[in-house]
């Protein structure tokens, strides 16, 4: 089934300079009871974003009007822990299309790529530069060029990022993995018989 296509994106960014953000923080387990993919953005970073009474915490970046945009910039080892794809759905549903970090947990990275959310891994040094730049000038625009595989800041400084060529085709064209796997059905049937 086709997904939203990703080619390039220029947007402001929201800085979340915390390391080892696990998917329980992205979307706590008690909000995983829905049976559809929509609506999880409401509870994105729930316990950091709202207090016990459900009032927004003013010191959390998503509640700070200074920052907005489609790019989330986070500390290293983003998305560790639970395999819940709801984390990728929540980030996307909130409106983000890119997460920049200096290191991603494997399962999260895969889940993001399967949902048209682009994980962009940059060096520790470049991550620091992005965070500093955004802190100094929150209206800074960052460009993510998927074709060139580059993150470009307003001053022209940039860094390349890696993405698997197959996933790049999928993102650029809005394809998903099942379309490809379904085309292998006959080969899979042979395997299913041999291994039974």
């Amino acid at each position, binding site marked *: 089934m086709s997904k939203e296509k990703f080619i390039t994106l220029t947007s402001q960014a929201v800085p979340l300079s915390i390391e080892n953000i696990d998917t329980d923080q992205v979307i706590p387990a008690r909000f995983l*009871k829905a049976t559809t993919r929509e609506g999880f953005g409401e509870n994105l970073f729930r316990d950091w974003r709202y207090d016990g009474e459900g009032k927004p915490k003013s010191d959390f970046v998503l509640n700070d009007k200074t920052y907005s945009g489609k790019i989330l910039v986070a500390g290293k080892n983003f998305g560790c822990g639970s395999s819940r794809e709801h984390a990728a759905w929540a980030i996307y549903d909130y409106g983000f299309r890119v997460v920049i970090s200096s290191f991603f947990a494997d399962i999260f990275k895969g889940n993001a790529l399967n949902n048209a959310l682009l994980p962009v891994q940059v060096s520790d040094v470049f991550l620091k530069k992005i965070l500093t730049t955004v802190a100094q000038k929150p209206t800074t625009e960052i460009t993510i060029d998927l074709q060139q595989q580059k993150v470009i800041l307003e001053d022209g400084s940039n860094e390349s990022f890696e993405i698997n060529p197959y996933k790049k085709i999928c993102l650029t064209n809005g394809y998903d993995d099942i379309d490809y796997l379904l085309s*292998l059905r006959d080969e899979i049937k042979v395997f299913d018989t041999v291994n039974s």
Partner: protein
Amino acid sequence: MTKLTLVERPTQTSEVETGETLSMSHEPKTLFDKIWDAHVVKRSEGYPDALFIDRHFIHEVTSPQAFDGLRKRGVKVFNPSRTTATADHNVPTKDQHLPIKEALSRFQVETLRKNCAEFGVELYDLGHPFQGIVHIIGPELGLTLPGMTIVCGDSHTSTHGAFGNIAFGIGTSEVEQVLATQCVLQYKPKRMKIEINGKLGKGVVSKDIILYVISKISASGATGYFVEYAGDTIRNLSMEARMTICNMSIEMGARGGLIAPDETTFNYIKGRKFAPQGEAFDALVKKWEQLTTDKGATYDKVLTYDAADIAPMITYGTNPGMGIKITDRIPTVAELRDISEQTSFTKSLDYMGLEPGSQLLGKSVDYVFIGSCTNARIEDLRLVANMVKGKQKASGVEVWVIPGSKQVEEQAKKEGLDKIFEAAGFELREPGCSACLGMNEDKVPAGKYCISTSNRNFEGRQGPKSRTFLASPLSAAAAAITGKVTDVRDLV
């Protein structure tokens, strides 16, 4: 519906390698490579491998959107006999014979029932004698076997690797892939060997081994790798103890962890409900005996530890890598492995209400949780019962014992463990994931400390603002008796 065509493929070299041809190469291979390569349906340059999946487990939380996807595509389940379902994440641990009170949880479990009925998937529902935590029932029913590929929409699928198979957690889109095609698209991870040799000290159990390893390499130290655990310490562990180790592989970032099968493995499987029986079993054992890493095979990384250096462990922070020997002090900022982690470290200790450089020993606890796919098997319950027999829990401490499955619960009752727990003031409940992730009513209240045999100490994991100390079932039992973080070696 769009389809990838041949023209759009990045390159066209090295097409159509099958498991058969791959496994015939004479190059020495790791066990991981042997199993992986034997399951590659299609490998194309620039593409992830299409990996055939032998066994698929599903549960109520990460499957509904996948079934919806099948409906939208008009696709059936590829081979329903390879998928097994149970209800575990969301279920109450009291009065399971009654309808689930909480509306959303009830709806999710009902959705699982409808989906399994519609698509012909076997479901071990609440009240079924085989119901339980998905990673506990697979092995105990003999559905988990050596040499397989196993997936589930749950990161602790790594548990099954204890039987010498490739088992890893996947997201819901991948659950849909497996339901639709019995395959997942995966990039092959790198290989890491973690070898542990020597005799374990008094009071040290398998949970301590894995908490020790994670404390050494951090919560991201094995990201990008698949781990093989080896060495005589691992060899001498029971199957259930091995499962505890493999279970927490994901907590250092590894996709999974496996242990080559041996006599211990075969003896555990023999006679289990869905395991092959008689001659078929004997023939399989002959095959399984070949499931070892070849001499001369290389790993991308090798780590070696001495069992004598491992002590009862406990975590103090908000990721499983933040662990110490129970008698050690919490590090100070100056002692951090990586100074760039200072912000996270400080945030973590603030959350936990703990001081850098202080000791955990003697710290009061409010809750004790004995349960989860890490430590809710019968051996875990026996360890706890042995420790508390004839003793009483400390006043003011609430103790929950949540068996991993209906079969574990029945066995515990048969052995009279329920009476020991009752006499000690522990509450033996019904099976489910429970306070490991607090999706049901079993939540630790804000600000309270819980010593837990589960696998994650993330902020809010056991309930909003709850504070978790991860430890072994022995250390949890010791804390239940004293009401404080206790060195179990002082009690045994």
